[in-house]
């Protein structure tokens, strides 16, 4: 049995969608609800991937009794580890989930470190500082080979090595979809909690929130830590999904700029906006890659740059003409007052937007 190109396309699309959903939910918490422009989103994602690159491979090689230089003989060691994992499924899963927990903890620690400037600096200085932090992470990852193999990268153990080749990616995707759903539901619960209301109050008027005795700094620190932990888990999941990690891949464009773009297109500060914005973005990019060969005849340059031109222009257009995004932030959901009408379902609202866009 082998998957056709359409099925492979769908599986990969769903996997990338799920990973970006987790990252975008965390970015939405920071930027949409708390108003913190985290231009160093790649930092937490990359740290999560570094944990996945450095820890589980060494642990499993130790458990299986495979010796050797983990970075130098990485490919040989990982081939043995994956062969060992076929018969030791339980150990594979245990190490996998433990890695995610470690990634979350390290991510939260990184969040605490970024919270130090984030609660002290103004928006623009903060954005520049966080951006520089993200670049610093990459420089260390590229040059300090013990973490993620430096310029060569490392391979990761595959907890799904026991599955037949054709089922490995679909199974991984199912797992990713479940985790993304959990992240989105968690994010949604969090912003409906008192913390979410406090964050919006702080974002809209910090002074007013502080004057009624709210601890603004604590709320922001907590948000950044939670968001960084989520992003780190997403980074680790991505490394496990593709089966390897290389520092070059954790760049500003893919893990800071694209998430901002998805969240802004969908609409800040609501989880439906994240769902829609992420889907649109991932779909457009995947379709461009999928139809690359046919597009190559139409555009007079390398199709890679079509992505950049198109998405850059779309984002500017959205910021200028629909700053609230496709789905604007709604009122805080509360218990309905007696006699109040139920809110329109999502499908009806999307239809209304489509009518408006069509000029009706």
């Amino acid at each position, binding site marked *: 049995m082998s998957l056709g190109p359409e099925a492979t396309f769908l599986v990969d699309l769903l996997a990338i969608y799920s990973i970006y959903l987790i990252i975008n939910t965390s970015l939405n918490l920071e930027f949409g609800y708390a108003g913190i422009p985290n231009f160093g989103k790649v930092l937490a994602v990359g740290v999560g991937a570094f944990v996945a690159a450095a820890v589980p491979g060494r642990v499993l090689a130790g458990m299986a009794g495979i010796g050797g230089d983990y970075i130098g003989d990485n490919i040989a060691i990982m081939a043995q580890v994956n062969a060992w994992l076929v018969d030791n499924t339980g150990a594979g899963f245990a190490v996998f989930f433990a890695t995610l927990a470690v990634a979350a903890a390290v991510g939260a620690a990184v969040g605490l470190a970024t919270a130090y400037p984030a609660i002290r600096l103004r928006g623009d200085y903060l*954005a*520049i*500082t966080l951006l520089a932090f993200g670049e610093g992470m990459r420089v260390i990852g590229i040059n300090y080979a013990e973490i993620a193999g430096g310029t060569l990268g490392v391979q990761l153990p595959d907890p799904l090595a026991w599955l037949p080749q054709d089922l490995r990616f679909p199974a991984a995707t199912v797992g990713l979809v479940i985790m993304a759903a959990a992240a989105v539901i968690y994010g949604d619960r969090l912003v409906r909690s008192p913390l979410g209301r406090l964050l919006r109050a702080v974002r809209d008027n910090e002074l007013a929130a502080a004057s009624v005795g709210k601890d603004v700094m604590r709320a922001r620190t907590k948000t950044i830590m939670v968001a960084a932990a989520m992003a780190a888990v997403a980074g680790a999941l991505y490394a496990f999904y593709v089966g390897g990690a290389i520092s070059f891949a954790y760049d500003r464009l893919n893990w800071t700029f694209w998430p901002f773009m998805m969240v802004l297109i969908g609409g800040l500060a609501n989880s439906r906006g994240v769902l829609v914005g992420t889907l649109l973005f991932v779909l457009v990019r995947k379709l461009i890659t999928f139809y690359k060969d046919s597009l190559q005849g139409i555009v007079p340059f*390398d199709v890679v*740059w079509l992505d950049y031109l198109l998405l850059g222009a779309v984002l500017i257009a959205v910021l200028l003409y629909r700053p609230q995004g496709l789905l604007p932030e709604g009122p805080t959901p509360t218990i309905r007052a007696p006699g109040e009408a139920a809110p329109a379902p999502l499908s009806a609202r999307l239809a209304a937007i489509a009518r408006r866009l069509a000029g009706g």
Partner: protein
Amino acid sequence: MRRPRPWHVAAGAAAAAAIALAASPAGPAPDPILSAAVIYSSLLVLLAIGLTLTYMTTRVPNFAHASSAAIGVYAALVVSRVWEASPYLAIPIAFAIAGATSVSLYALVLRPLIRKRASQAIQMISTLAFDLILIAALNILADHIVREYHVTAREFTLRSYDAQVGDLPAVLFVAPVAIAGIVIALHLALKRTRFGIAMRATIENPDLSSVVGINVQRVYAVSWLLGGGLAGVAGALMSLWFQGDPGLGALLIPSIFAASIVGGFTSIYGAVAGGALVGLAEILGTRWLAGELGSWVIAYRPLVPLAFIAATLMLAPRGLAGVDWRALGRRLHVARA
């Protein structure tokens, strides 16, 4: 903030010239590291001045600023390798194209956003989006140059196209002298011309300036033209010593921000000091550390701007221009006594 006087500028220019001289005729083969340090810090000064000019007016850090330098790099490539003329002819062309790009970012994207009262974060993101379009355009141009003219357009250098002064490349002298000239010209323009006074008034209080009849938007547009144009000039000179690539902007941007923040972000003289400090530290500092600790340090050079940003924000958040040097000196004097 105390007003800098012309002799401050003259002293800065003299210091730059002294460094250039120190790098020059000491022996038959001067240390290329010193040349690199002089050229790099001169260009960082120019880039920081440009970024500061745009930030002073609109208060948006322009994340597309470094790509204006990449535009200058490609102007120099086309002039020297396609037209086969002196790369120095690219300077006015680079100024014009990079300046026009920068003005269009202001006029087409930022001004409408400011009018719609978009938040500063949204304005910053719009400059990132604009940068993406510039990077794509530069890459398309690079591909085109390779295909049409069979000329290397990625990871190239134009070192061999530079003129020679004695044994030394001309850019080693042109860069610091050009910086000194530009700083003096900017100083005179800001202090002595009507437009300069209008500009300073607008920076201090845009609402009041528009009340007295200053065309605030034109002032902003001119500062963006100058800011982008100077970055283009820096790029055109840069390719004569360093490697040019469409991705140059991404490598430069932390250093440019570090230089501007060290300088206080709202002072042209601060930008001069910040650019010189960060540039020299990046090249000579890492070299010295490599001598002390081992050559592995060199790869971590990109962490230097990060360290400068962190140190400035913790110790003197308003940058060098915000430090009250006289009070500091008095305090040190008292402590010593």
